[in-house]
């Protein structure tokens, strides 16, 4: 069955789960084998050694590639393994431009690991394409974007930035973890590579770590596959299965969680103890108009607020919710709360944190699947206690 013309949700259920031809099982078996018997010496079957390929992982790679609309997908052991795989496309002396509102772990990889391989990095506010154009250098080979950004949920015009990067001869990679392909499909907007921490919305249940890459062309897919196979940070079969299973409800989860996030943003914006709510669905968010165009009517389920008060006040609130659980990560059915300054973005240098707007009073919410009323009441009691 050819699924390419099917709807998003139909593909999310069927592309990664072909009927098992041997038994007819409606859910394909989980292949745990580390190696595969070959038809003859020097003759190779589709699978040979599990690092090079595994049927369960392949199913996951196929469904992610289909949802992102790319040529091919790769499943890796974590989001960082996926990001690292992309940076390994570059060579000594190459230059990377990345957004300034990005995941702390990516910041750390670029500044504390890639620098040792002789790669240089410039962070720039990608919400302003003019600034991006000015940051491009003759050796710029990669533009790394995140939209919505983390933790300030800034919105970047992916199509405009991709055009600037391509003119300068750089590849464009987009970390699409926050938006998910339900809201944004960067390859359709000109990106070359999409990256996911599939730990988040793709897996969706806080019970698996994973990373994914989707390439827009055969040539780029093969270069990335070569790195995956050669360096070995592959996704395990069980985890591949759990992510494939999670993807079957991706669209319904993300849409529902985003609706709840929107209602929470509206509630919090009117709260006297809240300084500011950063949510792209609010009309006064600086990226709202762009998000309305680029996010398919879904504004995501991440919401950052700045409370009136200091570091200690934000810390107390983050520690006193009962339904929102205090933890990093995001994107799952359970709602989470965290303080970026002390948790998700603690790997930034303190000066860099301030420069990139990660203030002490910020609180980041990952809105889960719980009922809106329960989440609202939980936030209210946490914010209003003395």
């Amino acid at each position: 069955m050819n699924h390419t013309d099917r709807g998003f949700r139909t593909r999310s259920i069927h592309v990664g789960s072909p009927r098992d031809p041997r038994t007819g099982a409606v859910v394909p078996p989980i292949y745990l084998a580390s190696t595969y018997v070959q038809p003859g010496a020097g003759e190779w079957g589709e699978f040979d050694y599990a690092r090079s390929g595994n049927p369960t992982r392949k199913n996951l790679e196929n469904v992610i590639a289909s949802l992102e609309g790319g040529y091919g997908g790769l499943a890796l052991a974590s989001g960082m393994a996926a990001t690292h795989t992309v940076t390994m496309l570059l060579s000594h002396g190459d230059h990377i431009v990345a957004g300034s509102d990005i995941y702390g772990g990516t910041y750390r990889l670029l500044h504390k690991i890639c620098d040792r391989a002789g790669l240089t990095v410039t962070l720039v506010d990608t919400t302003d394409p003019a600034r991006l154009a000015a940051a491009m250098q003759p050796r710029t080979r990669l533009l790394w974007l995140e939209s919505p950004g983390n933790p300030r949920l800034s919105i970047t015009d992916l199509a405009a930035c991709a055009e600037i990067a391509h003119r300068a001869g750089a590849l464009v990679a987009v970390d699409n973890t926050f938006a998910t392909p339900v809201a944004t499909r960067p390859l359709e907007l000109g990106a070359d590579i999409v990256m996911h921490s599939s730990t988040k919305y793709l897996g969706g249940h806080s019970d698996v770590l994973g990373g994914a890459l989707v390439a827009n062309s055969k040539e780029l897919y093969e270069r990335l596959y070569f790195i995956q196979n050669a360096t070995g940070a592959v996704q395990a079969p069980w985890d591949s299965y759990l992510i494939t299973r999670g993807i079957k409800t991706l669209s319904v989860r993300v849409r529902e969680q985003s609706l709840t996030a929107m209602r929470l943003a509206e509630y919090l914006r009117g709260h006297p103890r809240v300084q500011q709510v950063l949510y792209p669905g609010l009309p006064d968010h600086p990226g709202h108009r762009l998000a309305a165009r680029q996010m398919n009517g879904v504004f995501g389920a991440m919401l950052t607020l700045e409370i009136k008060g200091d570091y200690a006040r934000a810390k107390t609130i983050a520690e006193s919710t009962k339904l929102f659980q205090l933890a990093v990560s995001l994107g799952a059915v359970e709602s989470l709360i965290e303080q970026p300054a002390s948790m998700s973005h603690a790997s930034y240098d303190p000066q860099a944190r301030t420069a990139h707007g990660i203030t002490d009073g910020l609180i980041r919410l990952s809105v889960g699947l719980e009922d809106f009323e329960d989440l609202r009441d939980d936030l209210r009691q946490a914010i209003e206690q003395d």
Partner: protein
Amino acid sequence: MNSPRQLESFSSPQKPGASTLAVHAGEDRHKLGDSITDPIVCAATYTFADTQAVIDFIEKKQPREEYGRYGNPGEKVVERKLAALEGGELALLYSSGMAAIVGLLMAKLNAGDEVVFFDECYHRSREFCAKHLSRFGVVTRQVKTCDYEAMDAAVTPRTKLLISESPTNPHLSIIDLEKFAAIGKRRGVETLIDATLATPFNVRPLEYGVDYVLHSATKYLAGHNDLLAGVIVGAAEKLEPVKKLRGILGAINSPHNIFLLERGLKTFELRMQRQNANGQAIAEFLVAHPRVERVYYPGLPSHPYHEVARRTMRGFGGLITFLVKDATWQQTARIVDAVQIPRIGPSLGGVESLIEQPLVMSYYECTPEDRQRFGIYDNMIRLSCGIENIEDLISDLKQALEQ
């Protein structure tokens, strides 16, 4: 490890919603190792620090694990979650839906006792009573579905249990739960509803005074066509002997399955909303299609039990049965073979749509007279809607009906 605290103890001003329950109910707020998800405990047995600890366990009835057949930490979490969703005191998990009903029947019935079924109840449940429990002297009576007077009349002083499914399968008849429970209360007989097709999202039979709710959790509750499970929910006092017998008979579920069930339940409300919507839309599409003779779906005004369904159910589920106009069984089979998205297979309730022809799938070896008696027609197709895009499902059915 921090002391256990569960959702029930939250000082929420109102009762948590179904999705909040699906995500959190039954789980400890702080879990082993501070993990956000429950660990999978594969232990067959559980150890004691010393002899005195064993004696304390036996004498003081301490709530702890002992041996895998008697209980498992993950099993308890899922049981609490299912009980919360169903609004019952206690849930008991089994290795399959059939294991669950057999567990209850074996605990409740003695030689000479009688059970009364509505005759559209799952045929394997009726078969177990009629063919197997009869060997132990249990008498099974069957009356026409939704004939409450006939059910009342079938009750004797030896009757112990009244059983029905609602909605029934594949005819989607809807039981008036108030009337059904009232017969039991008036006659002093316990009542059981197999609500697999309804799920606690659409109806909660315990609220109508039914004593036990049964689910094949394989279906909507787990929702991903990747595990088998059964559950019975009811009052703790009534289920204690059933639980004890389960520990002896051992039709328990496995730790890995339990983990998948718990994970599946997190998206329970979302999936049900989608499957209700898909079911309604497809039923409406089919009823208007010239090749369709009849559609069995409680959400349609033409359905004989539409009124009672509307009164008691929040949605009508993802299962639809329909008859193809002027079609032989072979012509009907060609439609089943022509669909491209739903796969041919028994079972229902998962995210993947499934399709089948009851004559072929479940009644192939019956005589034509028996099939006629059961209301299984040659031109009948049963469709279990998954959560795929409705446009895709409808265009797929359309091409299959029109080729």
